[in-house]
């Protein structure tokens, strides 16, 4: 089967991805062909808004890639941008030379060149893809969602895949990389990010944003989510912001989280709001109990906060003023790892063969260095494993912000947070290590294809300024 034609047809307009149920289960070993072309785009998320950007297939975010577990994909990628780029399949475990990290697992793809990615997407769930060539391609718009359907998942009456993303001011990104940014902090009041902060406070690594979007639109130009009374609705949500944790709320509704980074939770968690770190994904469900119109919002204290909103409405309520929630977390119950995993007396460390106890530090005003165990890439300590090893990594964060630490090519389990052991360890590929002396511990099994797998902070500024290392198979 060749889906390239379908993708070409769907490129263009900014639209929420309403996901129809697949008509028939896919045949195992079926190969699905995709074509991705990265090129400059003037991104127009609403009237009067236009930003020079980069995009896949002429749309930002890039096209939703969707397959069923068991299928293989062949992705022909072509670079028509002036920068070096590559495509990383975030949250998947492909052969190492398909992981898409320029300079580590493949040469960068230059202007006019192509690269063929071929692998069997796995594990299933809400994953994504983005540039990984250290020239800020992802910051400028090279990202998209990748959903691998698991036939074992419970069906939803309606399903929407939504990318929450921001348009950074590139000057502020450059200043942030030098540690001399004067951009204000805009995390919501009541969030841990603002525990010792006030709106408008400035940090040297803060990025300033020109716009906040959902799936290529700024409210009210976002595509509404049409639902019916009685529907059980599944949202697949990605925070593609390069630096900001995003809180997501649907006014008037609680959200039931079933998957974190595409991996099922042992026990679903019901909350008022999702806390979605950079690069994290959550699958959250809600039930439509009555007719109405409500705003699905990315909560922040940015004056532009309401750009990142989309209407969820029932039939006949298309023209109703949607009910909105305040841009604050005061009195709002939001998701946490401890909430999702519950607590236990101790961590099960059986079978652990290697241990790493690392600090995260850096970010002095006017300095570029962000560090792991006191060193910046490429001088950071490495994890050298043999297949079959079980590795425990404990991070202690000496900075005053959470770091979204990401591991390529593996699914780790969060086994403890701030010294609290989790009763149900969370399977994830990116995790926020809490600030101000907080700790977070992973355990992962070295059972992936041999090669070099990056481990880094997914805040693009911190990654490019050295908060990166790797897991290398001996």
């Amino acid at each position, binding site marked *: 089967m060749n889906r390239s034609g379908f993708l070409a047809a769907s490129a263009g307009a900014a639209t929420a991805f309403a996901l129809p149920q697949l008509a028939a289960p896919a045949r195992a070993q079926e190969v699905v062909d995709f074509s991705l072309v990265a090129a400059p785009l003037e991104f127009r998320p609403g009237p009067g808004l236009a930003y020079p950007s980069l995009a896949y297939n002429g749309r930002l975010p890039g096209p939703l890639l969707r397959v069923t577990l068991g299928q293989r994909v062949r992705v022909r990628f072509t670079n028509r941008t002036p920068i070096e780029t590559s495509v990383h399949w975030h949250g998947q475990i492909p052969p190492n030379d398909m992981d898409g990290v320029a300079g580590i697992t493949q040469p960068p793809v230059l202007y006019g060149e192509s690269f063929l990615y071929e692998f069997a997407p796995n594990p299933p769930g809400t994953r994504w893809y983005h540039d990984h060539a250290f020239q800020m391609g992802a910051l400028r718009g090279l990202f998209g969602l990748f959903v691998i359907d698991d036939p074992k998942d419970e069906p939803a009456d309606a399903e929407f895949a939504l990318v929450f993303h921001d348009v950074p001011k590139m000057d502020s990104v450059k200043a942030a990389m030098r540690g001399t940014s004067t951009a204000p902090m805009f995390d919501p009041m009541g969030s841990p990010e603002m525990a010792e902060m006030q709106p408008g406070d400035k940090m040297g690594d803060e990025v300033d944003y020109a716009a906040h979007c959902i799936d290529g639109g700024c409210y009210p130009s976002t595509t509404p989510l049409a639902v019916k009374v009685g529907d059980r609705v599944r949202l697949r949500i990605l925070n593609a912001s390069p630096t900001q944790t995003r809180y997501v709320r649907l006014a008037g509704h609680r959200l039931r989280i079933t998957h974190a980074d595409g991996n099922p939770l042992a026990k679903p968690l019901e909350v008022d709001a999702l806390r979605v770190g950079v690069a994290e994904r959550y699958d959250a469900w809600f039930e439509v109990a009555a007719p109405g119109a409500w705003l699905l919002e990315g909560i922040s204290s940015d004056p*532009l906060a309401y750009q990142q909103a989309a209407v969820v409405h029932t039939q006949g309520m298309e023209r109703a003023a949607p009910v909105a929630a305040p841009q*604050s977390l*005061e009195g709002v119950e939001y998701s946490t790892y401890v909430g999702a995993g519950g607590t236990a007396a101790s961590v099960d460390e059986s079978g652990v063969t290697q241990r790493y106890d690392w600090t995260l530090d850096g970010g002095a005003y006017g300095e570029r260095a962000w560090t792991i165990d006191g060193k910046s890439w490429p001088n950071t300590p490495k994890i050298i494993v043999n297949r079959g090893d079980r590795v425990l990594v404990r991070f202690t964060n000496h900075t005053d912000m959470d770091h979204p630490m990401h591991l390529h090519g593996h699914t780790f389990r969060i086994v403890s947070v701030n010294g609290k052991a989790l009763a149900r360890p969370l399977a994830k590929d990116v995790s926020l290590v809490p600030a101000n002396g907080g700790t977070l511990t992973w355990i992962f099994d070295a059972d992936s294809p041999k090669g070099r797998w990056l481990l880094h902070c997914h805040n693009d500024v911190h990654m490019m300024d050295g908060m990166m290392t790797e897991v290398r198979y001996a």
Partner: protein
Amino acid sequence: MRQLLRAAAISCAAFLALAAGAMGAANPAPTASAGNAGAGAKLVAQFGCEGCHGAGLRGGGAAPSLFGIERRLSAAQLSEFIAHPQAPMPNFGLSGAQIADLVAYISGLDGGASGSLPVVSTMPSPPTSNATVIVRFPTPPHSATVTATMQMGSMTMHTKPIALEPTGDPHVYKAKIQFSMGGAWTLHVEYDGKHVDDPVTVGG
């Protein structure tokens, strides 16, 4: 550790109080009481009004400019619209007091009726060689005059000061004025030891 550069910002306690107050309130009937423009400014920041109405609420493409809105809609009409908005304007579930604060703030964006500065307008607008200058004062002045000036290179042309006459509305004063030529003029209004300048372009 990162180094914090703290800017002058809204006090944390005030912000929290606002956030708490904004929650859970249904849409009560708008009250006629005068709002607090300072509290309204904080609500504008908290609710992200600039996201749609643009920087300074001067229009952003997604939603209209609110600059000078008090000249087009009454406070009651504004309150009613905020309490029962039309899509895509969201329903924020604000209390009557919060709506009054918002109305006070947005009505003063141009120094308007409830702001601190007089609002100068002309009839017709833009003015022709013979026009009426209309000035709405926040509080009725003891006396007021208008002078029209025009800069031509290093030379300044100006009319004599013309007394502004009261009208049926105690806040509104007006005067007839004659411009000697078309072009860019400035209307200089003096009142009670203060003054305000309003640029106008005279046709013909």
